[in-house]
């Protein structure tokens, strides 16, 4: 099984390292091209700047092939910027992939000085959550399952093969449980 991490910008190496730590049989590769995308069983869209990512995704013609793969059932996981790109609606701007029935508001907690860490349950596991200039989920669609909440707001959601977290599990180097959870999604859909 091979999991790809979209390698245009952001916390790419962090995700690769954690996926590789899950299990020796799972490989993790950087995905920058259509050919690389074709070789993976699941895709992670990492944290970074969503405006930069969407420009590069358009420029290098990755929008259509990624959207088609996810619609055909490939599991995808977006962290922070990745969540924004997956959402059906983004406050004040055009949505991107529109593959996840949630509304999000970007930089909703404020600027860097308002970034914070928290703890909470994620699908029955007690995990640390790092929020960096994070988005807030302002609406959750009927078919979307909320996996984690912080102060009453959904911060991790799943709709079938689409997983999204407003926080960054890739930044907690010693904890690969959410990466393991995603690997489980990929394994089950094979």
């Amino acid at each position: 099984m091979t999991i790809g991490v979209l390698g245009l910008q952001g916390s790419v190496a962090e995700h690769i390292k954690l996926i590789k730590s899950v299990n020796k049989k799972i490989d993790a590769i950087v995905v920058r091209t259509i050919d690389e995308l074709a070789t993976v069983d699941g895709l992670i869209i990492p944290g970074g700047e969503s405006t930069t990512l969407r420009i590069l995704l358009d420029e290098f013609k990755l929008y259509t092939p990624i959207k088609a793969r996810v619609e055909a059932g490939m599991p995808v996981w977006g962290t922070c910027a990745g969540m924004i790109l997956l959402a059906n609606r983004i406050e004040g701007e055009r949505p991107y992939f529109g593959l996840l029935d949630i509304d999000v508001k970007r930089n909703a907690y404020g600027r860097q000085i308002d970034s914070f860490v928290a703890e909470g349950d994620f699908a029955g596991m007690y995990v640390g959550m790092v929020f960096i200039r994070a988005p807030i989920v302002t609406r959750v669609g009927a078919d979307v399952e909320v996996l984690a909440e912080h102060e009453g707001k959904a911060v991790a959601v799943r709709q079938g093969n689409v997983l999204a977290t407003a926080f960054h599990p890739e930044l907690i180097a010693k904890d690969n449980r959410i990466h393991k959870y995603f690997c489980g999604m990929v394994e089950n859909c094979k």
Partner: protein
Amino acid sequence: MAVKDNKSNDRKLLNRNLAQMLKGGVIMDVTNAEQAQIAQAAGAVAVMALERVPADIRKEGGVARMSDPKMIAEIQNAVTIPVMAKVRIGHFVEAQILEAIKVDFIDESEVLTPADDAYHIDKTKFATPFVCGARDLGEALRRIAEGASMIRTKGEAGTGNVVEAVKHMRKMRTQIAEVSALPTDQLATYAKEIGAPLELVRQVAKNKALPVVNFAAGGVATPADAALMMQLGADGVFVGSGIFKSSDPKSRAEAIVKAVAYYADPTILAGASYGLGEAMRGVDLDTLTDEQRLAKRGW
């Protein structure tokens, strides 16, 4: 696993984490809201708000200071990406002001005229992250010990000449390789020689990497320059005068963003370099006197 232990440690990690989110990206110098919007639309991961780009500071001379908070606020209102701004080396009150207006990152920068010739800012006293310039491993670790969350090469800002940035990046890589290969009983002496805290030298030796993100800066003018720095191991690139001092800033900004994302693909680099118009004129470093070399500021 719990991450919550104490507030100041959380802050330190959160600030290093923001720098990680910028990896693989381009941070562009802008002097007004309109340039900031051009930078964001071109795909910049952050902008650096300053009144004069380094090339103009170099040309016009005088004391270069922190920018007017009004101008920074206009830029903050114009874009959604992080906004950085510069303070003079040692000028902790300028830093307090930037923290008060919630700048996302503070650059304690040799490009501005130093305010203190003996001490850098104690950056651990701030909740806002700092980026600092460094020419080698010792300088980088001194800044990290003072609380910097991100390092960049100094290069030679405002010259459009990448040679110093290359020198600093290579020096850093060589020293990281050196320290990683040393037996542990030689680390204390190595730390003393480069003037860095032993604890941080041990960390570098163990991880074979700096504890924070390291960007290239100072003299990057073309997509090829940016990709060169990435291939030499930079985590991302600052472009100062190189964009808005060129003949077609928008196209050049877009081209440099592409070149950094696909830095190892010569075909894409060729495309990004194609028909870009004139790059900034640039300066031959041999014509600069020691006083004109900004990289010599700070220690």
